[in-house]
């Protein structure tokens, strides 16, 4: 813990060092946010194209041929192009939105401020982490425009399809190499970022800021960064091995005697399940990398709007920690029917069921804390409450998928798609929105339009349920995922459900355009916040200027006297006591 104010690096003077290659964690946080926003728009656009195709397969989408002549002749999507767009949708959303926005964007901007630091300890690494991530995004998007387009193998890129080159299908040669390169580059960015987050939390806390005095959002980013450091460290070499199978004649993931087009492939001795093990060892922690920051953000936003602390700060922290630890022990539930030893399936099933305990505790802490609150309803708190609803809905379906016997029926169906979209997609997005409406004034010095924010919420909340609940029904009926059309006899009666989902997806997507308008309009013309603490918060970001100065706190570093959430404290001078307030509290909300 440091206790003296010293500039880690001086304030930049040139435009490039201030706005482009900036060392300032706040600028980097905004850059990550902008990248995530761009990626989310691309990902959502792709999902629209997919959904239109699934609802009305022969419909010509005007101008689609401009994206790919061979993929959309006459503006009608080919089967392979559907898979290519689907793969890019999943990859962009998981890596460049759900990891980037709640963790890298908000974490970069607010973690140093919430711990009371001038910046992160390795600002050059921090700048590099963003630009490396940005390059990763460019490499991925490049695959749209080169060779025969992006890979069609899904965001999980199962081998050997992903490892045998262009004989596997369109995009399986150069497309896969670009995909794996992009993800490996992305991993480097996240490793650098995680290193900074961990050291910031452990070494850069200001005077009086013990670990237990950190807000829940800071704890969530800290826990996530530990997961990031270990999970991305496995995915990166896996991607490198995959690239080697393409370019160096190795056979890490391709076994002997595989035959395509009557030709025996020149590979031998590889293991197809090895890729699945490596991928899911990253892949399941990734679910929590996407959702734990949302848990922290939502808790932070809710507490401020409930005017009371969580039932137990400590229990929430321990629960998030338990989720992180258990997330490494459950990954095999993605592989129940993969051919893995069936005894292993039971071994992975048990911790998968057990992980519902900390998840339930988190939900009960939120619900128990709402009891007796003085809840303020605004766009931020609506999204935070919506997050809880989505997390519950997505979470309960996990009970089914945790059990190998039921997975026999539901594996690779839309039930899985509904489950993970609700629990790590929509819930995480709601966390991002809650954080955006809440912190926007601090980040840019303007308020967002509340009315538009509430319209955005209502359309998103109802729309998301209309999209993702029916996915579960489709899955129960045996609707297989990753099909570009439903030609099987038993799937044909389900097509009207797909049409309904498509309409709901277009409706919900439109709501996101309202958000985009609100974001851009408010950035330039939004109301000026009435003061530095418009929501009457207590943590350190609300005790500094709006937006914060280059070194976050000006000339004097803050000193912390209290736990983070001193709301409605009996006998206090107001309903909230800032962490920096030296006011003596007779019965504060300090952890015992």
């Amino acid at each position, binding site marked *: 813990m440091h206790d003296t104010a010293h500039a880690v690096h001086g304030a930049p003077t040139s435009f490039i060092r201030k706005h482009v290659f900036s060392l300032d964690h706040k600028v980097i946080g905004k850059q990550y946010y902008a990248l995530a926003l761009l990626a989310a728009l691309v990902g959502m656009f792709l999902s629209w194209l997919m959904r239109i195709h699934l609802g009305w397969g022969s419909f010509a989408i005007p101008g689609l041929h401009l994206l790919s002549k061979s993929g959309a002749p006459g503006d009608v999507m080919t089967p392979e192009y559907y898979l290519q767009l689907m793969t890019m949708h999943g990859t962009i959303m998981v890596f460049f939105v759900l990891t980037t926005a709640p963790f890298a964007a908000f974490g970069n901007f607010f973690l140093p401020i919430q711990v009371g630091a001038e910046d992160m300890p390795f600002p050059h690494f921090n700048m590099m982490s963003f630009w490396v991530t940005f390059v990763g995004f460019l490499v991925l998007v490049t695959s749209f425009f080169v060779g025969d387009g992006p890979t069609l193998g899904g965001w999980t890129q199962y081998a050997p399809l992903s490892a045998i080159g262009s004989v596997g299908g369109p995009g399986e040669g150069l497309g896969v190499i670009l995909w794996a390169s992009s993800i490996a580059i992305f991993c480097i960015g996240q490793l650098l970022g995680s290193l900074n987050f961990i050291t910031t939390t452990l070494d850069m806390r200001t005077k009086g800021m013990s670990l237990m005095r950190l807000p829940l959002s800071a704890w969530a980013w800290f826990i996530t960064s530990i997961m990031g450091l270990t999970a991305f460290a496995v995915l990166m070499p896996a991607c490198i091995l995959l690239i080697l199978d393409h370019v160096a004649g190795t056979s890490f993931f391709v076994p002997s005697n595989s035959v395509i087009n009557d030709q025996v492939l020149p590979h031998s001795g590889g293991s197809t399940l090895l890729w699945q093990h490596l991928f899911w060892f990253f892949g399941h922690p990734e679910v929590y990398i996407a959702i734990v920051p949302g848990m922290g953000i939502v808790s932070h936003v809710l507490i401020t709007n409930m005017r009371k602390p969580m*039932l137990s700060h400590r229990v929430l922290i321990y629960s998030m920690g338990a989720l992180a630890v258990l997330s490494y022990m459950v990954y095999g539930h993605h592989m129940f029917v993969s051919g893995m030893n069936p005894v292993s399936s*039971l071994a992975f099933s048990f911790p998968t069921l057990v992980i519902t305990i900390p998840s339930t505790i988190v939900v009960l802490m939120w619900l128990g804390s709402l009891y007796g609150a003085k809840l303020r309803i605004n766009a931020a708190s609506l999204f935070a409450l919506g997050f809880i609803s989505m997390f519950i*809905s997505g979470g309960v379906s996990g009970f089914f998928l945790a059990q190998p016997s039921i997975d026999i029926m539901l594996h690779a169906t839309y039930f899985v798609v509904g489950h993970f979209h609700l629990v790590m997609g929509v819930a995480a997005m709601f966390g991002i929105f809650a954080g955006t409406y809440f912190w926007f004034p601090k980040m840019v010095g303007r308020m967002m339009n509340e009315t538009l924010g509430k319209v955005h919420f209502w359309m998103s909340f109802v729309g998301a349920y209309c999209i993702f609940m029916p996915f579960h029904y489709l899955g129960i009926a045996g609707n297989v995922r990753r099909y570009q059309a439903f030609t099987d006899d038993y799937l044909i009666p389900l097509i009207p459900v797909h049409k309904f989902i498509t309409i709901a997806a277009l409706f919900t997507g439109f709501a996101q355009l309202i958000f985009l308008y609100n974001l851009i309009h408010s950035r330039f013309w939004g109301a000026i916040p009435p003061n530095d603490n418009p929501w009457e918060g207590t943590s350190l970001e609300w005790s500094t200027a709006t937006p914060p100065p280059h070194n976050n706190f000006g000339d004097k570093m803050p000193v912390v006297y209290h736990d983070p959430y001193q709301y409605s404290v009996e006998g206090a001078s107001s309903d909230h006591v800032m962490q920096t307030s030296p006011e003596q509290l007779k019965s504060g909300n300090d952890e015992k």
Partner: protein
Amino acid sequence: MAKLFAVTIIVIAIASAIPIVMHIWPMPQDISTHGHLIDEQYSDTMWEAGISFLASQFLLGFFIWKFSDPEPGTKIKNFPGGAAGLVIAAFLLVGTECLALGVFGVKAWASVYFTPPAADAMPIQVQAGQFAFYFRYPGPDGTFGPLHADQISQANANFFGLDTTHDQDSKDDIVTAEMAIPVNREIHLLMHAEDVGHSFYVPELRVQQDFVPGLDLSIHFTATKIGKYEIVCTQLCGLGHYNMKAYLEVMSQEDYDKWIKQQAALQ
């Protein structure tokens, strides 16, 4: 607005449950001897998950209704029993639920994977390749001939790469594009992937198993109802994945005997 939100949450929760309760889009009928174990496990889980879902959403809606936009001067209240009560409840209730589901679930899983096929189970080999399934019956000798990857030829319809000139066991093997089985007879399905990963999914049979290139697996099952069902691929295998399917015909023993004779004559 808070009250409208609370009502919306509760309405959405109820509306979400209706298609499940009313069986609007039900699970396909079960035609296997082991399927009832999976279905019972699914049903138990649906009860537990359904109650958790409805109770949590109702509670969320109720608390939003009751505790938002309070009158000025209202004091906050703490949840009776505090965090400790809820943590203990979570451990006891969810822990018991997990334990029960985990323990009972083993039975259904074991019925598929830990019970060896009967000695008289009928062996059939299935090969998955982009984007078709092919089936092989061992013929009168009851033995499959070896596969030769380098002899696989679509043009010569030698889908399995059999060497019927040199391999005695291959001579009477019967290769088909459709799978037919006798009703109430255990089938021992030997799975081989020709190229990339695929999967064998027959929802009515309550069977789903991936094909793993380089690793031949087997499953066994008994179909109990005569009829025609679809075998579909659930493992993304390339551009024709959505169209990769075959039919499974469950026949009476007499019909099956006729069918296999016809197929043998076509070889």
